[in-house]
């Protein structure tokens, strides 16, 4: 019934959460959560409201410090000792639930800011795009279907386009692991489908963890699913397996 965690093989484990507990005023948002993601994997994480999905992202990216437990990335690096910028520079990119782009910058400048490279203050002062970097921006613009909108202000984009721009910014960062929080929220069916295709394309060359509510979207991703409930893992497996899991049904439909 419940998935039993095999001890992960260290050489191909990219991310390993070990017994992570976070409480807010006595409420345990994460309760001994253990989870691992293998390099190159596309993983979907689902769960009802309050299951701890976003808190899990916050812990991995350094926004929230766990009370207990450890988070290892790429072998031995303990992420719980680092801050957001250090973790981002290790190669973990994050897309927020609510699309978060720089609204008063153009689409092009949003991508330029995300471009992998030195984040030093003085390097930024004298920074000039090289031809290679321009080509990379063009390539990402193409990937997220925003080539025609490159000179528009990000604040003037539609909701779906902002989501894509944010995914594009993750691609510019070229992280090893992408954490994507509800990418299909507020999208039309056509946009949802396009987004799923985009993420599958990205997952060919990156490890991706997607948190999502939308079952159609999860089905379109066609990948390994982890169900969170009350801050720990309830079930893991293919979407069909977890959907037929009695505990999962109870959690989602109520007892």
């Amino acid at each position, binding site marked *: 019934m419940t998935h039993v965690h095999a001890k992960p093989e260290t050489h191909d484990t990219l991310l390993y959460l070990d017994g992570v507990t976070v409480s807010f005023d006595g409420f345990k948002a994460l309760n001994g959560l253990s989870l691992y993601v293998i390099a190159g994997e596309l993983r979907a994480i689902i769960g009802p409201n309050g299951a701890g999905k976003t808190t899990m992202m916050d812990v991995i990216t350094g926004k929230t410090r766990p009370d207990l437990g450890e988070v290892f990335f790429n072998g031995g690096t303990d992420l719980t000792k680092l801050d957001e910028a250090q973790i*981002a520079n290790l190669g973990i990119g994050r897309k927020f639930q609510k699309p978060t782009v*720089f*609204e008063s910058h153009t689409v092009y400048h949003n991508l330029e800011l995300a471009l992998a490279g030195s*984040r030093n*203050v003085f390097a*930024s*002062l004298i*920074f000039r795009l090289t031809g290679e970097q321009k080509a990379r921006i063009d390539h990402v613009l193409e990937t997220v279907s925003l080539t025609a909108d490159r000179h*528009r202000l990000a604040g003037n984009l539609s909701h779906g386009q902002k989501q894509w721009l944010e995914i594009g910014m993750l691609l510019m960062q070229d992280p090893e692991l992408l954490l994507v929080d509800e990418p299909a929220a507020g999208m039309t069916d056509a946009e949802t489908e396009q987004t799923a295709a985009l993420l599958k394309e990205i997952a060919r060359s990156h490890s991706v963890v997607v948190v999502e509510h939308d079952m159609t979207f999860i089905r379109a991703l066609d990948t390994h699913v982890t169900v969170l409930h009350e801050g720990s893992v309830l079930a893991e497996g293919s979407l069909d397996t977890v959907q037929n899991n009695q505990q999962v049904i109870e959690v989602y439909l109520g007892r």
Partner: protein
Amino acid sequence: MTHGPGPLARLVAGSPGALITLVLVMGAAVLVPVLNLVVPAGSAFHVPTYLVSLMGKYLCYGLLALSVDLIWGFCGILSLGHGAFFALGGYAVGMYLLREIGARGVYGNATLPDFMVFLNWKELPWYWYGFDHFPFAALMVVAVPGLLAFAFGWFAFRSRVSGVYLSIITQAMTFALMLAFFRNDMGFGGNNGLTDFKDILGFNIQSDATRVGLFVATALALVCGYLVCRVIVSSRLGRVLIGIRDAESRTRFLGYRVENYKLFVFVVSAVIAGVAGALYVPQVGIINPGEFAPANSIEIVIWVAVGGRGTLHGAILGALLVNYFKSYLTSALPEVWLFALGGLFIGVTLFMPKGIIGSVNAIIGKGRVAAGARRRVSPG
């Protein structure tokens, strides 16, 4: 790389406001000396010396407003204590000017300034050493505000103090400095401050030529300050600053150390404010602890809001307009001034939140945005 326009042309490209600002300030730097020194006093075109110094004072305020716009308009750091950096720059020059008096003071004491003789002090405090040399004083003009801003920013930004809380502690900083400088035993002239200056670099501070020289120096400092700010905001660093202003956590998750960026721009801004204060003191002839008053710092923010924050030249325009208005009103209807200032701030916040330049830019940009919106196919 292609042979594009020169670096200066690139900076003002696409910003007519920047070009107009540079031309006007440079024009004033050439025209005002001619109209004061060459045109005879009887002529209708003659600019009297008091007016030269008044305009010089306004340009100092313009430079000060610029420093606040750099952090507030571009990085969202609302400092309500920038008057402190201005005053510190002013005190550094004031100390030099006081040492220049030498034995010509009321008490004729060659080693001690008048106020120390009056307080019955026997020797010069150690922190007055060096101020009889202009280069040392000039160094202190940038070093003291810069170091204070660095220490303040180091703790505040590292602890992620932002928004209203940061504004309040900047206000507390300037208030604390005001109380400290009011004390006689601080050794900065207490309540009276530093005044009765005689020479600067050996030139009589009251002479027309010196006054004109100070005006020209101020105009050049404003041009340099403006260009420094332009270089910063039009670089990738400037785009990171705007990113921090609009979506701080997104900037962090992209891997930028937000505290370092804020610290850098805060220190640059404090140094610019210090230079403004240093040019202000010889032109008005006095520096006292009143310059640290919290109300002064709030007034700077109003200049920037009126002119249009996040535009740089808007800040300068706002400083000039509001101060002209202030000079006019405080002589015509002195009791009305504070009400007018408050009303102006409320009016701008309610009816012109982008300020003068921001509103002009919005009107110019409207056609372009409307065209963009028509092209846009919004789904669902």
